[in-house]
């Protein structure tokens, strides 16, 4: 009985993954091996099901790795990849530095206030993401809110819209809840008697935090970091709206391949390459989680 129940419970996420991840992933993978064509749909080969096995064989012979060869032959893709990872990496570090004290502070509040504060972290999600990013344009533009405020304080204006600084600001702002919530979940669950025990044994409040609370919260930090890092490295909207023309990120490269070049195979190959490189941190996280459980 119990076994049957858990089997069913496992089937649901598996089915979800199969339908919404594995199947689309296969489609994209197959596209990345195709060639562009001026037809509907704009790639070749297509499977001719009427020919049965022969159709499948013809299809398989039409596949090639030309799109991947291009990824290696032009340094643009490597540059874009490194630049995406660099921006996502810097933003993740900033998010940890900003998110940790927030999550820690909330977890140490009285329960009623805690709920209100968690709600406050989630609240911005009730406004459209696009509108929140557009709001940053109004804040950062040359005659925007930020420079009016700086002017009122007698400080010189700053011109950061359309720079990497603006992109990092936007990334940190948009992804902060994804960092705070997993950290908070871990910190909130922590057994407070551990801290009391540490203090009974002579630890100062700081060393109790550093040697007990902090190591125990690392799994939350890792979860938050991955939740932020992975989508940020493929982020498109924030660099497009807040970044300058020179902000090179893979999202933009995929857009150019897909729309400007009408080259679906190349766009798919870039997407697959990005996914493959992101698997590394995911697998590392997986291992770390296993160690925590062990």
């Amino acid at each position, binding site marked *: 009985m119990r076994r049957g129940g858990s089997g069913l419970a496992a089937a649901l996420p598996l089915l979800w993954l199969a339908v919404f991840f594995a199947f*689309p992933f296969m*489609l*994209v993978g197959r596209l990345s091996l195709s060639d*562009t064509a*001026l*037809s*509907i*749909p*704009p790639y070749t080969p297509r499977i001719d099901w009427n020919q049965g096995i022969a159709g499948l064989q013809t299809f398989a012979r039409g596949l090639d790795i030309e799109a991947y060869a291009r990824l290696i032959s*032009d*340094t*643009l893709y490597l*540059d874009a990849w490194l630049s995406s990872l660099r921006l996502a990496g810097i933003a993740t570090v900033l998010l940890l530095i900003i998110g940790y004290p927030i999550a820690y502070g909330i977890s140490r509040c009285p329960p009623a206030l805690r709920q209100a504060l968690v709600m406050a972290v989630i609240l911005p999600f009730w406004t459209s993401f*696009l509108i929140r990013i557009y709001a940053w344009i109004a804040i950062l*533009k*040359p*005659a925007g809110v930020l420079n009016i405020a700086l002017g009122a304080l007698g400080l010189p204006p700053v011109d950061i819209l*359309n720079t990497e600084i603006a992109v990092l600001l936007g990334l940190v702002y948009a992804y902060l809840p994804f960092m705070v919530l997993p950290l908070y979940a871990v910190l909130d669950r922590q057994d407070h008697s551990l801290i009391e025990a540490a203090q009974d044994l002579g630890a100062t409040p700081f060393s109790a935090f550093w040697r007990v609370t902090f190591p125990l919260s690392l799994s939350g930090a890792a979860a938050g970091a991955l939740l932020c890092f992975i989508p940020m490295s493929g982020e*498109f*909207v924030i660099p*497009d*709206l807040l970044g*300058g*023309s*020179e*902000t*090179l990120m893979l*999202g933009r*490269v*995929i*857009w*150019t391949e*897909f*729309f*400007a*070049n*009408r*080259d*679906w195979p190349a766009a798919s190959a870039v997407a697959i390459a990005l996914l493959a490189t992101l698997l590394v941190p995911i697998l590392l996280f997986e291992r770390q989680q296993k160690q925590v459980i062990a």
Partner: protein
Amino acid sequence: MNRWSRGIGLLAALALAACTPKSDGAAPTAAAGGVLRIYNWSDYIDPALLAEFTKETGIKVTYDTFDSNEVLETKVLQGDTGYDVVVPSNHNLPRYITAKAVLPLDKAQLPGLANLSPETVAHMAAFDPGGAYAVPYMQGTIGIGYNEAAVAKRLPGVKIDSWAVVFDPANLAKLKDCGVYFLDASEDMYAVTLNYLGKDSNSKVPADYEAATALLLKARPFVRKFHSSEYIEALANGDICVAVGYSGDILQAKARAEEAKTGVKIAYAVPKEGSQVWFDVFAIPKDAPNPAAAHKFIAFMLRPEIIARASNFTRYANANAAATPMVEAAIRDDPNVYPTPELSKRLFVTTTKDQALLRDVNRQWTKVLTGR
């Protein structure tokens, strides 16, 4: 020709790339004449005209908008869009025809074709021989939009009538502090850059594009941003002083600045070296659910009194010669909208590039944008 936000385009593309189910093109045909689905550029028709069409024919209109040729073409070439009328630009049309993505028109149902201006028909011949697949709707040019006072202060005595204003680094250096925007549209920008360099704006020679890239890379340090729609608002607000942009968009910025009464005066110039003229055309996708309604709509838009009102709304010139006297005088007599014969001689059209050249040109454009 607004490219409002690529973000939306990407989201839409991801949604369709994730294997969209068959569009609900065959929605219940409640009204007597069925449903007509139109996919057009944003802010590109007077909504009153659609209501009038429904009243006259009983055909209900569903109207969606896009903001770039790239998004439109990607959608149409995916197939099963469910749209009956789409509005690509001239230089993209041959790709639709080659891909067999559009239906040949039934000209017997389009008596208004005789109203089209012979000049436009001649321009379109290169893209759609004999007008078999498309009917021109509106046309516009690429040129320089500028803040009169801000530019006069930085370039005293200089007449803004040459591409040198935006392509000569010496001029750009003086304009940098007040803000310069270029279009982020590789084909359009290369066409006008090649023309400025005295080369064929439709060159097929990679070396020509490399020369254009070298010039654009020299201009790049002085350009605040490459973007295809932000400049409308930025010009109107006085945030920037020069933009290379589309005629209708810059005239829209001018109108907005006048409405806001901020004292910002925007002007538009088609440079003397010549510029690109483009046409947006009505076409019917191959798998359109209701091609009969599509023909009725195109016939409706070919009526002079109707298309004249469309131009009054969009501030773009239409392709209908019989309609010109009915267009508001302020628009009809504005050479920036209806080019004078003298100006027309300096306008050229951009032809379609093959896949290899398109990829090469876009790769060079990425180099202009990112320096890499």
